[in-house]
């Protein structure tokens, strides 16, 4: 709002009148010259007085001239020659203009009004004098007369470019009066005037944009500023820069971060711009249209542009005086980047700010830290988030932003599912800053974390304690969260009742009510309560036809039909979602694929897969493996080629040109399994897939097309692996590493290259793993990469970092293939680092995990035994050993150390009953060869 007022509302009304005075001087000179030439001869007796008045007016001595006109009127006003209409017309006109120039506005208005009245048929000067009267009445605030002259002017001279000036001033007046609708109408009329030059239209559009901002129509303002005509016109830049901060702020507050980001792209430092505004004046001197005394009209327009530019310059100067431009604009840009989810860019800008201490205000410094940490959380770069948090806490412990940074530290822990740390850090924050205004939202988040960490009962209690202190508007949200707690506790009826109450809540926001409906549907799907599900589904479809979760709800409906056995309905429901461009379409497509496979409907499976591939190629998005796997299944099943000829050509182009968009391996598998057919559609008709692969590898190498080179080489390596030629396969992988290892080639390729670099101890193996982890935080290969990276950290002498990394795998990926390896390794390292408690906890989780192999269980038992002996839990230590040796007596790798451990621990026990009992147990439980190795004291 400040910006709007500062540039659109007249700050010094009198000051703006000055150009008008200058203009009038010139104008009077022209008119006087003309009048003297035509009328003097007719009034010879009065010559001297008249002549002197005219000369004074022409010389810019308006006050003297006015006095002479008054004297002239007094002495000669009633003379017949003076009353003659031919003379009187010029006399009244010049007298009126002299009065206007001398600032006697009332007298000028009376005289010029009299002129209009006495000369109804005089067209010459009429438009000009009415235009002047509009200005006079505007300055005098005579609304009635002003409106009357305005209307008459606009009606009588609709094609005069000066209509733009009249309307523009009218808009200014409306802005001052707070009538934005009227201002908007007038400015739109100005813009629609064809005779207005392009820079003038830009100015008018910019002024209209500011009016739109003032009345809260941000998007319209944005459009106006974006579509300003004349891209080269620097004036546009000034207006955009002037409006951008307020516009970005308003758009952010209105929840339109993308638009706010666009507006933030116009930021410039106002002081520098204000200096530049002066250079624009010359460009705007052009007079629109033609006709009339050109010099006068040019003068009027020049005065108008000059006024506008002066206001712009004044506004920019004021903006630069009111704020620290660097700090405010950069902070706002950071906010816009984060709001629009441009995490990478927010992080880069934040880091650049922190690397520029001379430019950085303490407030901006804190904003930069927050941005980098928030961006790192969004990008799942936990280490980076933690590093910047610690750096801030260490370097700026007294900064007022400390609670915000501590909160982000807790959020980092929560984001990486380290709930213990997150909850304890949040507790500390709540205790350290009991008066902080963010306390209620921290408490809400703490309750949510309790729920997410599997403590629904505690979460429920926390929500109950928060509820009485919260604003009423939060009640529905708390009910919703409590519904989630009840659901987690298995109290499905209570959960359903809470969701239903939120769904029907009168004051809750629509999106929350929609979320409650979706949660209710999920709950009914879980319980397969058909009647309730159908009722809620119908209600949802009726109320949220354009709901943000509509596609998800249809997927839930599809799953419900699928589970109910109504496969035809499930297929039609999923098909409707799959044909859309929403993110949920991918889920629906996968479900359809699964359904067709289940019912063995090969024809539809094939059709669906082809449509999926084609839509991916058309939209340029990445195509997943599933449709190719479906095509392969069809091909193997029907013994006929799955890919139609034109599609093969498209796939070949994409494989070579935009490799990362296709899953190379399954695509080539399809071709390879029916090569005699597909080779006909490939240039040169190569005899075998291997021959073709070799040629495309060479082509890619020649063209430095490294993504294609890497993809084909790695596929060739896979074929070699399948033939048992692992060394040759690795040679190819190493070649890819050497040629293109420094590039980012896509998730799968980069992963294979990381593993190769790690296996062959490439010097940059550790860096490669770290880069992969940072670049693909959602990759399914991440656990393996993290385990490898942790091993490398351990080898480099960073045991704490290594353990921390491995701990992530243990905590976050219990279903990963590498989980057991990670848990065993973590336990071993924890014991080495004298953290037996952590080791014991991890081993307990591991031993409860189903599906462990014999050797894995034996190793876990051995570790637990060691842990137990160390922590004094001797009984369980002996039992673990006994269990290991009894269940897995043939696993020498674990039995041997277990026997050594047993012997060592038995030696520590004092002679007595306890020792006897244990030895007795062992003698009975163990195999004779093991007993012999233990060398019991027979005596």
């Amino acid at each position, binding site marked *: 709002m400040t910006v709007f007022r500062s540039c659109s509302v007249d700050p010094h009304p009198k000051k703006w009148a000055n150009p008008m005075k200058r203009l009038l001087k010139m104008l009077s000179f022209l008119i006087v010259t003309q009048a003297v030439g035509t009328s003097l001869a007719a009034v010879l007796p009065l010559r001297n007085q008249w002549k002197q008045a005219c000369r004074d007016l022409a010389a810019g001595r308006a006050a003297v001239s006015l006095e002479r006109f008054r004297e002239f009127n007094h002495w000669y006003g009633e003379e017949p020659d003076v009353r003659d209409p031919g003379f009187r017309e010029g006399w009244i006109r010049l007298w009126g203009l002299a009065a206007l120039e001398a600032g006697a506005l009332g007298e000028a208005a009376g005289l010029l009004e009299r002129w209009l009245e006495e000369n109804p048929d005089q067209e010459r000067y009429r438009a000009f004098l009415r235009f002047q009267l509009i200005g006079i009445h505007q300055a005098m605030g005579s609304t009635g007369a002003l409106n009357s002259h305005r209307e008459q002017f606009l009606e009588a001279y609709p094609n005069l470019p000066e209509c733009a000036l009249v309307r523009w001033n009218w808009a200014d007046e409306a802005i001052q009066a707070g009538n934005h609708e009227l201002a908007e109408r007038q400015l739109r009329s100005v813009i629609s005037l064809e005779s207005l030059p392009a820079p003038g239209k830009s100015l008018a559009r910019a002024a209209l944009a500011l009016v739109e901002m003032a009345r809260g129509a941000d998007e319209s303002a944005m459009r106006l500023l974006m579509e300003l005509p004349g891209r080269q016109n620097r004036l546009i830049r000034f207006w955009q820069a002037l409006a951008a901060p307020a516009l970005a702020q308003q758009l952010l507050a209105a929840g339109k971060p993308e638009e706010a980001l666009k507006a933030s*792209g116009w930021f410039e430092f106002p002081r520098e711009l204000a200096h530049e505004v002066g250079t624009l004046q010359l460009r705007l001197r052009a007079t629109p249209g033609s006709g009339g005394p050109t010099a006068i009209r040019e003068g009027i327009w020049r005065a108008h542009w000059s006024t506008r530019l002066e206001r712009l310059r004044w506004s920019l100067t004021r903006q630069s005086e009111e704020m620290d431009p660097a700090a405010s604009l950069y902070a706002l840009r950071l906010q816009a980047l984060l709001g629009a989810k441009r995490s990478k860019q927010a992080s*880069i800008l934040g*880091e*650049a700010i922190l690397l*520029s201490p001379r430019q950085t205000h303490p407030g901006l410094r804190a904003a930069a830290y927050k941005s980098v940490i928030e961006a790192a959380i969004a990008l799942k770069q936990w280490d980076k988030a933690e590093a910047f948090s610690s750096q801030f806490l260490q370097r700026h412990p007294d900064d007022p932003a400390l609670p915000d940074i501590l909160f982000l530290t807790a959020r980092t822990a929560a984001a990486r599912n380290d709930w213990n740390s997150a909850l304890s850090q949040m507790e500390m924050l709540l205790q350290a800053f009991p008066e902080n205004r963010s306390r209620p939202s921290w408490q809400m988040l703490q309750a949510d974390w309790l729920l997410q960490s599997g403590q629904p009962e505690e979460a429920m209690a926390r929500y109950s304690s928060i509820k009485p202190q919260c604003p009423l508007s939060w009640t529905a949200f708390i009910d919703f969260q409590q519904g989630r707690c009840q659901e987690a506790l298995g109290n499905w009826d209570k959960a359903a009742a809470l969701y239903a109450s939120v769904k029907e809540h009168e004051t809750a926001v629509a999106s929350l009510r929609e979320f409650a409906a979706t949660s209710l549907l999920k709950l009914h799907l879980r319980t397969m309560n058909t009647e309730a599900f159908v009722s809620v589904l119908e209600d949802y479809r009726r109320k949220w036809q354009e709901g943000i979760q509509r596609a998800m709800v249809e997927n839930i409906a599809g799953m419900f039909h699928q589970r109910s056995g109504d496969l035809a309905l499930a297929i039609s429901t999923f098909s409707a979602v799959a044909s859309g461009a929403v993110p949920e379409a991918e889920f629906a497509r996968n479900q359809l694929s699964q359904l067709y496979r289940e019912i063995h409907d090969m024809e539809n499976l094939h059709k669906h897969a082809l449509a999926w591939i084609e839509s991916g190629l058309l939209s340029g998005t990445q195509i997943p493996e599933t449709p190719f796997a479906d095509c392969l299944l069809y091909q193997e099943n029907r013994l006929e080629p799955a890919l139609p000829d034109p599609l093969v050509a498209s796939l070949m182009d994409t494989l070579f040109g935009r490799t990362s968009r296709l899953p190379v391996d399954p695509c080539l598998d399809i071709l390879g399994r029916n090569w005699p057919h597909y080779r006909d559609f490939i240039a040169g008709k190569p005899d075998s897939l291997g021959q073709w692969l070799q040629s495309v590898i060479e082509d890619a190498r020649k063209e430095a097309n490294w993504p294609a080179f890497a993809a084909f080489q790695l596929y060739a390596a896979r074929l070699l692996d399948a033939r048992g030629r692992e060394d040759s396969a690795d040679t190819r992988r190493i070649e890819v590493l050497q040629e293109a290892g420094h590039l980012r080639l896509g998730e799968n390729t980069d992963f294979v290259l990381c593993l190769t670099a790690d296996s062959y101890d490439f010097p940059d193996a550790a860096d490669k793993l770290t*880069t992969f982890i940072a670049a693909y935080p959602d990759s399914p290969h991440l656990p393996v990469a993290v385990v490898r990276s942790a091993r490398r950290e351990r080898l480099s002498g960073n045991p704490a970092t290594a353990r921390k990394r491995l701990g992530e795998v243990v905590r976050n990926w219990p279903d990963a293939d590498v989980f057991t390896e990670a848990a065993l390794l973590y336990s071993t390292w924890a014991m080495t680092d004298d953290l037996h408690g952590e080791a014991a906890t991890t081993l307990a989780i591991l031993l409860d995990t189903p599906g462990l192999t014999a050797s894995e269980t034996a190793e876990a038992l051995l570790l637990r035994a060691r842990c137990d002996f160390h922590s004094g839990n001797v009984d369980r230590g002996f039992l673990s050993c006994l269990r290991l040796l009894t269940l897995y007596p043939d696993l020498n790798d674990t039995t041997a150390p277990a026997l050594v451990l047993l012997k060592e621990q038995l030696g520590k026990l004092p002679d007595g009953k306890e020792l006897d009992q244990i030895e007795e147990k062992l003698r009975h439980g163990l195999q004779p060869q093991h007993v012999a190795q233990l060398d019991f004291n027979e005596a």
Partner: protein
Amino acid sequence: MKPEHHTIFIIMVMVIVQGTLPGMEIEGQTVSGMEFSGRIRSIQSGVLHLSSPDGGRDLAIGIPMDSLAFARIDIRKPHDADLANRLETVVPLLPALDQQTRAALLEWIRSLGEAGDWPGVYLWAGRLMKAGEYPEIRNAAALLEAQALHKMGLHRELGLKLASLNEGIEPLEAPPLLCRLNAAFWKQEGDPEKAIFWKELPRLQIPSHTDTQP
């Protein structure tokens, strides 16, 4: 350093010069305040030899280089093909050239780059940098020198040059060309994080710079 004394070591030799000498038009002032103008004949043994028109004849003037307060050469666009050769004669004059001439020279060096003459850019940007004074022009010349190193594929030298350039400037104020050169360097070094940082930085600075040509 200009000599502090104002002794004029101007040797004026009246000669009748036949024909026109190749060279550049120059004007300027000595430390003693004497203004001069004419066509450069040569610069030898620390003396600038000019021929200056005087009443239908050419007056030959010799001005010791260390007595020059400033000199100005008219380098007009479009630049002719022979300009490089003619400019070679004024290399010793570079420290005395005024800001306007150096700015014109910088424009000419840029035009060499546009024409693909990167060794030329490297040579002249280096000379302009060494001429001292006018930090803005020297910074711009240093950037052009770095760009020339990049274009000539001298990666290691580019790294060293960038290290010194980055030292004197904070990232928020780094010119777009410096950012792009840093991005190109780190990409070549195989550090995608740093390369992306520098590549993205210009469009995040205020005002934003959206051109991305290296």
